[in-house]
């Protein structure tokens, strides 16, 4: 067996060397590859802080065995927008006051991106259900729900303009 495996993360290949078999995708992302934007807060899928996209599906990185993710594409919060130029959803979180301690935030951002990709017209109750796997201890969710709703509205408004605009968001 090879002493390393390869993961595709945010569009680039990363080799993982000499790993212990039981390492989760979360551990490998954070500790071996330096993608510390993905947070660890419960390691049992009950908080959503480690939300990532695997083959564009929203999952908890703590519940994926790292070695099982070879051959799939992994997108972390760092892969959603270039550093310093936040995505629409990211900017909406800042503007709406959806960030306090910020520990749950990357997971929520990934979950919100997944939601708006799948259901661009999501509104109140759908947003609540879609984000119900992402626990926030600081905000009481009010500003988070507002941020996602605002991002959805902005996308719809932009989409009503031109197709090109939609492609940019």
């Amino acid at each position, binding site marked *: 067996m090879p002493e390393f495996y390869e993961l595709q993360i945010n569009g680039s290949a990363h080799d993982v060397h000499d790993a212990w078999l039981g390492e989760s995708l979360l551990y490998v992302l954070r500790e071996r590859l330096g993608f510390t934007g993905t947070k660890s807060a*419960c390691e049992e899928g009950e908080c959503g802080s480690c939300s990532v996209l695997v083959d564009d599906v929203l999952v908890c990185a703590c519940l994926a065995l790292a070695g099982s993710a070879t051959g799939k594409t992994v997108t972390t919060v760092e892969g959603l927008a270039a550093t310093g130029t936040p995505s629409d959803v990211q900017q909406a979180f800042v503007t709406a006051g959806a960030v306090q301690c910020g520990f749950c935030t990357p997971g929520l951002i990934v979950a919100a991106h997944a939601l708006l990709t799948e259901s661009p017209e999501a509104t109140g109750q759908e947003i609540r259900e879609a984000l119900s796997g992402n626990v926030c201890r600081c905000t009481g969710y009010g500003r988070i729900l507002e941020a996602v709703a605002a991002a959805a509205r902005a996308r719809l408004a932009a989409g009503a303009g031109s197709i090109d605009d939609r492609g940019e968001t």
Partner: protein
Amino acid sequence: MIVTDTRTGRRPGTLGDSAVRPDGVAKVQGTFSFSSDEQIDGCVFGATLRSPHPSARIVSIDVSGAWKVSGVEAVLTAEDVPGNATYGLVVADQPVFAADVVRYVGEPVAVVAADHPETCQRALAAIRVDYEVLEPLLDPEVAIRGEHPDIHPDGNILRHQRIVHGDPDATGDVMVEGTYELGMQDQAFLGLEAALAIPEPGGGGIELHIATQWLHEDRRQIAACLGLPEPKVRLVLGGVGGAFGAREDISLQVHTCLLALRIGRPVRIQYSRRESFVGHVHRHPARIWMRHHATTTGQIVKIEARFVFDGGAYASTSSPVLLNGITHTQGPYRCPNAVVDGWAVRTNNLPCGAMRGFGVVQACFAHESQMDRLAEACGLGAVEIRLRNAMRTGDTLITGQVVESVAPVARCITEADALPLPEEPVGGRDGDPMRLPGGAGRTSDAEHVHRGIGWGVSIKNLMYSEGFDDFATARCRLSGGVVTLKFATAEVGQGFVVIAGQIARSVLGVDEVRLDTVDTDIGSSGSTSASRQTWMSGGAVDAACRKVRERLFDHVAAQHGLDPLRLAIDGTDVIDTMGTLRLAVEDAVMGREFDETVEFRHRPTEDLDENGQGNCHTAFAFAAHRAVVDVDAELGLVKVIQIATAQDVGRALNPLSVLGQIEGGIAQGLGLAVMEEIVRNAGYVRNASFTDYLLPTSLDMPEVVVSLVEEPDPQAPLGAKGVGEPPCISSTPAIVAAIRDALRHAGIERRLDRVPVRPSDIAL
């Protein structure tokens, strides 16, 4: 470019504006560095061996097995602590490592350092500790009665304090009483305890990157245990993923430093969630008996009360928590006579200490439940009974202290009462189960749902009490139109980093504010707790900026031959208020640098005397909550539909931040009301995980409607009161009162004297 808000005339980023957080973009992009994210080359991992017993004698510890695990670099126990063997915020009664006995499940016994977390776990499993299990002390009443041998050299009573005020024999025509209980709540911040310790070459000093609430207090305790002078221990604030009181005490700080000093390499420790539940202090479980005497028209005549707080194995802040509880017995109501007996005791349960609300949460659940009983006994409504007794500025508390703070209690109640009730129909709509109690579980149909409304109103002391020398330090440097602020204030999510910049922009007329590293290279700012940082560190930043402004005005005045008293800041300019001079601040600075450091103190407080009399607190804030809930009475399931709140904030320096504190605090109050409790059995913890310790999700939080009551407090440096704690104090009793009301509509009478209210408490 300066864009002024045309509606308010306010310059963006100044006081009163909902400025956005300077750390916001980094946090949404995942580039903000939390303490758990800090990595350094050559770093190894640490992990902690913990007691499996609530009470046991350590017969022997054999660490040789751990050393046989490949990759292990250090194994430390009590005998490896070079300095003080114990630490503590108030009393140093807690061992760095248990040596002779263990006093709670989860108490640290040893630590290891190794190349991989998995190696650490295998090494811990290989340490053999022989315990002689002892009978644990678990019942606080047994501790009070003195029926159990001392479980600690300091004894089993952490504090006993009485309050006797007015006529202790006074009686009222109407009397209501009850005994109220609160379970143990966890702060459950998301960012687990984590630290990185970097030893100085030669081992003469250490740098610790740590998520904490109070760098300097941590340093005092760490240095003492390491046997190092404080200047050799440098603390740097690592990004803090929430705190809520749980980071006020030491957890892994000393352990991480000891390992790093031992092996001469950087060491990281991060707790798991399971560990975190036993690795920090919790909200005190409490049992509170209260009896209210009142006139037939509902005026409170006297309150009698007995508080018992279970402090767990070590003192932590049990003493001030108890003080807060008993001194808030009366709630935000006038009360001429009182007899209160308060106990905080040591047991073999998990240690308890600070959590948002700090003793007042417990008192408020009791006094608000009592107010509803009093209302019923007097034939009054929940709002009317509270308005009739509402405290005002100038009233005397049961401690004899006069309330000098702005006290808009009646206004909070009437403004909350005026907020619209929810539009949500009883029993939801669109057949959507998510709108009903039970949610996705599809337990309830509209016909099973009854709606109730309940009230909770609170008073909370701000900042530290009982003679504590409470101060904050800030340094302001003005250079070339840029302000650099330095302070040791822990940003834990509350938003001090945004307020600090707003203060500097308002006072000094600059746009660009830089925040220096938060570390122990400057004096203490005190703890980020007790709703105190806006007042204290805000006061310090404000004072430092004002001092720099004085220096700037002196400089400009000298240049232009003016009296500096004529100068003022207008927007981003220095202007002569009696002339025509107008200079951009940047130009006025003219290559100079102004640099001032200030210590800010609130006015001193006093100890209580033996009858609980004394000016022990410095200021107060108030809040009213109205809860609307839907209850499935048969199954005992609750859905909170709306919380309306009016809160006394003094002045909203950043309305968006205030709203965030209010909504977030309500979520924690809701959690305590209906789901959050560390379940314990014989001293063992049964639900130390997020699978079983339930936090409110986005589907549990209701609509929140808010009215900010802004009456600037003349005592407060910026007119602003702390806003963090009140939202989680009276929201809990409001929700429980609403559940009782809903049940009444269903023809069911339940006292619901215990929180969290469990389905079985309602249904059976």
